[in-house]
């Protein structure tokens, strides 16, 4: 049974991700945000469920579709929004953008834009914890597409042989960019690959936040005790295309999208909370309104923030000064 405070936290986090992503899509389509945007709409339960099992000093690393994971680990939505706008107040001072948001103070080792790369980096953070004798753990988020990279193989194998405190969480949204899973791999469940590395692989419903929370909690506990890594595959669905603006109609049907939207992770959890009579409609509506306001304020903060100065482009390459 998940305690009441945890239930609020899970719901708030999912709604915060939902509203942030909806707002980001809206702003992007209005042409307000530079670059590209990869929306995690539909995948909120994995970010919320997994990160709510962590302490602040635990590590995560995320992907190009990482807003949800980073919000769930506790990042401030105003500084995230400012980063999407390329502003100086953004988490990366406007140098990283949507796919590279990091908050090192929260042990968020960023989002990395190269598919699969995080699977190798996370091991180092986990190794540092192991060598220092702390009981910190690290979560690596990645997609089904990443499970076909060499980095997946190298990363899982190294974590396994060194018994590193890592939880590898596959956000299997069934598509590697535009390529359906049935086309990009022979297996249906990425979790089966755990066997090949001698680690536990589990496959769960990624749209059920309680399932994610409970499964991850167990893996985190095992990792804290020094029992090594776990591979958790969370089946989910990416509501939008690979990037905002990709209509996704060339590789999947509208019917399929509609079917998955019926399993909206936020609505499912809301219904659950109401059914369990933990909260009333009014309680949850209040949470929604408060978070909506938070996101609006984040947009105001971002829009009213200063642009970087051009000279800033030459800073932060090295700890030392710019090398001409």
């Amino acid at each position: 049974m998940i305690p009441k405070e945890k239930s609020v936290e899970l719901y708030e986090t999912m709604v915060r991700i939902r509203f942030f992503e909806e707002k980001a899509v809206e702003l992007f389509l209005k042409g307000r945000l530079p670059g590209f945007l990869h929306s995690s709409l539909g995948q909120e339960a994995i970010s919320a469920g997994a990160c709510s099992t962590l302490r602040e000093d635990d590590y995560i690393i995320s992907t190009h579709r990482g807003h949800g994971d980073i919000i769930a680990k506790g990042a401030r939505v105003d500084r995230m929004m400012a980063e999407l706008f390329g502003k100086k107040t953004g988490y990366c001072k406007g140098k990283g953008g949507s796919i590279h948001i990091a908050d090192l103070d929260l042990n968020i080792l960023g989002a990395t834009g190269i598919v699969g790369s995080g699977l190798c980096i996370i091991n180092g953070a986990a190794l540092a914890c192991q060598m220092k004798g702390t009981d910190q753990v690290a979560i690596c988020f990645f997609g089904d597409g990443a499970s076909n990279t060499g980095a997946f193989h190298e990363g899982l194998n190294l974590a396994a042989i060194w018994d590193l405190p890592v939880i590898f969480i596959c956000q299997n949204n069934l598509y590697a960019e535009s390529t359906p899973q049935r086309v990009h791999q022979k297996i249906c469940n990425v979790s089966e690959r755990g066997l090949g590395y001698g680690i536990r692989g589990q496959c769960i419903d990624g749209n059920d936040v309680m399932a994610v929370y409970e499964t991850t909690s167990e893996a985190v506990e095992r990792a804290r005790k020094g029992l090594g890594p776990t591979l958790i595959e969370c089946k989910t669905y990416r509501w939008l295309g690979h990037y905002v603006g990709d209509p996704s109609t060339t590789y999947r049907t509208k019917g399929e999208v509609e079917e998955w939207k019926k399993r909206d992770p936020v609505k499912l959890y809301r219904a659950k909370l109401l059914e369990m009579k933990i909260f009333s409609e009014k309680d949850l509506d209040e949470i929604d309104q408060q978070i909506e306001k938070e996101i609006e304020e984040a947009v105001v903060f971002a829009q009213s923030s200063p642009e970087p100065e051009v000279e800033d482009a030459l800073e932060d390459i090295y700890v030392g000064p710019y090398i001409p």
Partner: protein
Amino acid sequence: MRQITYREALREGLKEEMRRDSNVFLLGEDIAEFGGSYKVTQGLLEEFGHSRIRNTPISEAAIIGAALGASLAGMRPVAELMYIDFSGVAMDQIVNQVAKVRYIFGGKAKASLVIRTQGGAGRSSAAQHAQSLESWFTHVPGLKVVMPSTPKDVKGLIKSSIRDDDPVFFIEHKLLYNEIGPVPEEEYLIPIGKADIKRPGKDVTIIATSRMVLRSLRAAELLTEEGIEAEVIDPRTLVPLDEETIFNSVKKTGKLVIVHEASKRSGYGAEIAALVCEKAFYDLDAPIKRVAAFNTPIPFAPKLENYVIPDEKAIINGVKELFR
């Protein structure tokens, strides 16, 4: 002063830094019991144990990724890539991750790690084990590139590299490990970014890197018979480059020959030549001469390998061209 080998000096530097700072650890293929492919880490396991002398699988991306993750979590890893040729396997981690994290995260991240590797021809190692690929890495902002040629330099520079807060790509040469030279018994550091005048001279400046420093020094001795006093400069660090020492020498001699073992096309010599043309052109009284390997893969047969790599004769001929 005592005389020790390049290998011994390097090992001493690693040992001293590991004793000084418990956050320093080594990881790489076959570095523990086996002592490394070129025996640089031999004996370190006995003193520091398996936790800090970490054998890895043959997984170059996992090695560099783990080094990066560990550095982000406060460690100072020294990762060994057995051959510089193998860096291709880890190129995403080196170029997109290690070199970029500080910048894309707005200056919050420190990738305080060293990637030790070795390159170069001369042992019939053929095309995949004998390249000189330093210019791949000098081209990527975010990395520092160090390439020492003497026992004294390799020790002082590995110590500085380990202490440096920026990522250092540290390139040794397989035919330098057995070279003997004077190395002080007392502790010393050699700063990154400082060239060394290995032989003073007034008539021509020879800038040489790695093993070509040794050949250039022998060529310079032979050139005295022709009445030419060559000044031989070893930049020791390619990024950052000590431009001042180079420009001062060119101002004095008016002639510049650049010698490297990498193939000539787009080699680092092109960068040095361009810098001198941009900033010291009017100090030259002859065209700049590059003496470098032919633009071929490194051949296996000794006769062929010797042919494509510059020798003393090629250096002497290169210098004499400027005195016609």
